[in-house]
């Protein structure tokens, strides 16, 4: 059967608008914040932080498309580059801590207290 020629009767959906993209982006951002707040493994927290940055990227690109200018997309390039630098430094730091302390859990970071 020719898949390309196959037609499916879809119910007519409203077009995807800016608010849909923003809703998804806000959802991703909240998931990221929740991850940082709830998870106790530093690597998972770090992944959640990247999720927050990507939520912003989605919002920026969507705004860029609907505002008809390229500001948002330029900003996204900066964010991707900076995020890469941040990951390079961050993972190195986490590995250094692991070598010293044999742990990647925040509960174990207790040398300094009131």
């Amino acid at each position: 059967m020719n898949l390309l020629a196959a037609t499916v009767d879809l119910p007519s959906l409203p077009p995807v608008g800016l608010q849909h993209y923003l809703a998804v982006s806000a959802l991703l951002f909240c998931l990221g914040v929740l991850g940082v707040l709830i998870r106790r493994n530093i690597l998972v927290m770090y992944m959640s932080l990247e999720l927050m940055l990507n939520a912003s990227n989605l919002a920026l690109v969507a705004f860029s498309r609907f505002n008809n200018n390229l500001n948002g997309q330029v900003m996204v390039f900066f964010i991707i580059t900076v995020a890469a630098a941040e990951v390079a430094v961050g993972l190195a730091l986490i590995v250094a801590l692991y070598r010293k302390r044999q742990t990647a859990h925040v509960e174990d970071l207790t040398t300094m207290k009131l």
Partner: protein
Amino acid sequence: MNSYQLISLEIATVLLGLGILVADLWIAPAKRRMLGFIAAAGVAVIFAASFSPAFPDFGTAFGKMYVFDGLSLFFKRFFLAAAFIVLLLAIDFADRIAVGISEFYSLILFALAGMMFAASSNDFTLMFAALELITITFYVLTSFQRNKLQSLEAGVKYLILGALSTGFTVFGIALVSGIAGTTNFIELSAKLKDVSGDPVFLVGLLLLTTGLGFKIAAFPFHVWAPDVYQGSPAPVTAFLAVGSKAAGIVLLMRVLFVAVPEVAKSWSGLLAFISGATILYGSLCAIPQRSLKRLLGYSSIANAGFLMLGIAAVNKDGATAVLVYLAGYLFAVLAAFTVISIITRNAESDDISVLAGLSKRSPMLAAALTFSMVSLAGIPPLAGFFGKFLLLKSIIKAGSVSGPHFVLLAVAVIAVVISLYYYFGVIRAIFWSKDVSDHSPIPVPSVMAFTLAVCMAGMFLLGVFPGILVDADAEALNSAVGVFARLR
């Protein structure tokens, strides 16, 4: 005007940093420590060059992304002065850093370049890039003593919370610039009437303010400060307390007063609340502290609150007072960290008890730390007094327009009294400690003696002749872009 002429100070700083990094390849490991003198001398030359009459006039560059005005020039000089002293501190600290002292120097210079770009940013893109240049270099700097668990822990804590604040800032920028359709501060202020009612815009602005609040360690985004201050190497803590905080303040001023002046006015209640809570929290939590660096960490939170006071006043006096306060804060904090750096060389801990008998062991260190604490407490005739005085004056002026500011005034005055208690606790430990176990004199290296002399001279000069600084700051604000000149 050529854009590259306007950013010549930043270009020189980055080149200096790269030069140090490259020079490291040809210099024997034993002599690498001396690169710090080249770095410090280079920063001093750049600082002097910023006063040169041949320097270009004020203007904007790179499609109005970068603005060179009085406000940015003031902050650039401020950062250069801070970095000069921090580099001297780093030279003395070099023997406590296992490997990579040249990288330590150049990272300080790169962070300095980021701060100087931040002072001039007039666009969310540049602001973001500058902020990240500062933050990412500080991730490395805070954890530079890799053989010390405390330093690594401080680095990881700063990493997670710094990245969290970046996430807030970026999402805020996405919403604000997306709704307004521009990333430029001045273009945004022109469109502000159309968008300032939009809830998505306001949420974005709130997130952006949150992100910057992390940078200056304002309540309730201060949690990282005490641990990071305690764990980091002393020169880094000093740079974090002075440079990073001032960068956050200048960006807060740029965003609130250049990009969204009307919203800043209507938010003065919120800003006043953050300011009051930060002052009280920092002052109260500093009381039971035993670690000197941690004590200064809480004191820096309280100081962030005082700086927010000038912003919350939303008037020109407040903005001027912020600049005056920062100048006094610079010398006091750097003097304190210089003393701590010297004392902790021999004693492993930085517990307040190591100060016992300091007045006998090293009168110079005792005098410098005493002056620094007196200046931070805001007692005349030292520099800290005038900054606090002007801040309180500006809030009284703001209070005559809106009543709630008087509550903030009362909070600030109470906090000043509380702060006297813990600052004088340090002075009491220096002069009146009962059980002095160690009577050996503490040697002060000549570089550190010079640093202390510069800091003490700064505290006295700014305290005795505050008029020069106040006039210069008012002029700096008059020539700044945005509403600074029009603020009452």
